[in-house]
């Protein structure tokens, strides 16, 4: 009896604590945050300031801290899926060697990268393990070692990888990975090279 009272009291306190910590962060109006961001980059050129303006997906993912309700997630997935542009010839595989260079390169789109001195990279190694002989890899994303091999180099996976690089939010709403195609970070051609790097039997990723 006494134990259950203590348990109830503890649970009650825990619930109150959770409510308080949630409350602590809830009282910022989106407009106030937008203003803070805008004012923080006052000296930036207008085309650069435009990068601070959020699209619907960025808004939803920010306000829900990447945890949208099932309905919102479904709408988001559908909206992002519609953004994917496919190669006109239906071929998803490019050149894995070019893909490797793109996976290594973090160049591009930073304010020190203008005028561009080289093409924009995908910077895949910042977050993923790929070729296991490259030990300088990040761990924000899953390891992609032998990605194609463990899938028996199945053709449907070529398309799936292409879609995932082009717009990962079409399958993972509010996931961390950038929408490389939709956000015009990489071109269709570049994404195909990356697909080959992940999916080609000749690629060191699958050796």
């Amino acid at each position, binding site marked *: 009896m006494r134990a259950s009272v203590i348990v109830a009291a503890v649970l009650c306190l825990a619930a109150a604590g959770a409510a308080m910590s949630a409350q*602590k*962060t809830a*009282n*910022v109006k989106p407009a*106030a*945050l937008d203003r*803070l*961001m805008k*004012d*923080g*980059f*006052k*000296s*930036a*050129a207008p085309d*650069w*300031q435009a*990068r*601070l*303006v*959020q699209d619907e*997906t*960025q808004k939803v*993912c*920010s306000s829900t*801290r*990447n945890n949208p309700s099932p309905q919102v997630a479904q709408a988001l997935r559908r909206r992002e899926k519609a953004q994917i542009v496919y190669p006109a010839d239906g071929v998803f595989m490019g050149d894995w060697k070019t893909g490797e260079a793109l996976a*290594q*390169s973090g160049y591009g*789109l*930073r*304010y*020190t990268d203008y005028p561009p001195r080289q093409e924009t990279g995908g910077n895949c*190694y*910042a*977050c993923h393990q790929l070729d296991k002989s*490259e*030990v*300088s*890899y*990040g*761990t*924000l994303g899953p390891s992609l070692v032998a990605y194609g091999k463990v899938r028996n180099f199945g053709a449907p996976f070529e398309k799936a990888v292409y879609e995932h690089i082009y717009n990962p939010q079409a399958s993972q709403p509010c996931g*961390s990975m*950038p*929408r490389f195609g939709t*956000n*015009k*970070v990489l071109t269709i051609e570049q994404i195909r090279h990356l697909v080959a790097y992940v999916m080609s039997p000749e690629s060191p990723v699958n050796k």
Partner: protein
Amino acid sequence: MSLRNVLVVLMLALCVGVGMPRAGAQDDNAIERELERYRTMLKDDPWSNPALLDAEKGEAIWKEKRGPKDVSLEACDLGKGAGVVDGAFAELPRYFKDANRVMDAETRLVWCMETLQGLPRAEILKRPVSKANQQGTDLEALTTFLAVKSQGRKLDAPQGHPKEREAIALGEAAFYRRQGPMDFACATCHGETGRRIRLQPLPHFAKPEEAQKYMGEWPAYRVSQGTVMTMQHRLADCFWQMRLPLVDYGSDLTVALSAYLAAQARGGDITAPTIKR
């Protein structure tokens, strides 16, 4: 090998690493090993920390009569009363009534240079932070000086004033805001424990113990840059990585982020200036 020699080797190693587009993992590991060795040697001889030269320079600037009003910064109120330097850095950012805003150490220094010494704002902010291998700036030196004067204390930024609570809340919201061509928020990289970019470990700022360790380490001497890096500069570097524009030095945004991070890190030891790659 003397400390100075280790530092030279380290800088050479980093130059090689920076110069090559595909910085091999072996280079990275070698750099990490050298850095660790250097940090160990520093523990035996703390005076060999190059950032202490900046702190000394900062103290000299603090005491020097400058500007149209020909006064020193010694009357600057850093939050604990005019002229009180000891422990002031530990209690920043905080709300300042005279400026009617929350300020961090760097923003407050700019304020004092402007109001006390009468220096034009444009001149103060002409070069607030240094680029790689440039000479350190006055603001970097002054900030390092203030940090050294709080060494060994706990991070203890006040949260009592409504403006302080507002800054912390705004900073937290900004931390989770996704934007730009990469869809990044601060939380994208700093929202989980044990993650890294390439080989660089990333602090998870929602975890007090990680925030405490990390926030107490700045300003830090960066061997790859050859200069001290302040928190304002560190945040600008994050925005650069996020493919956002150059953030305004001392803006309400960077102060709010600092206020949020300081709140997360409350109680952490101030170990600054530390050595980073």
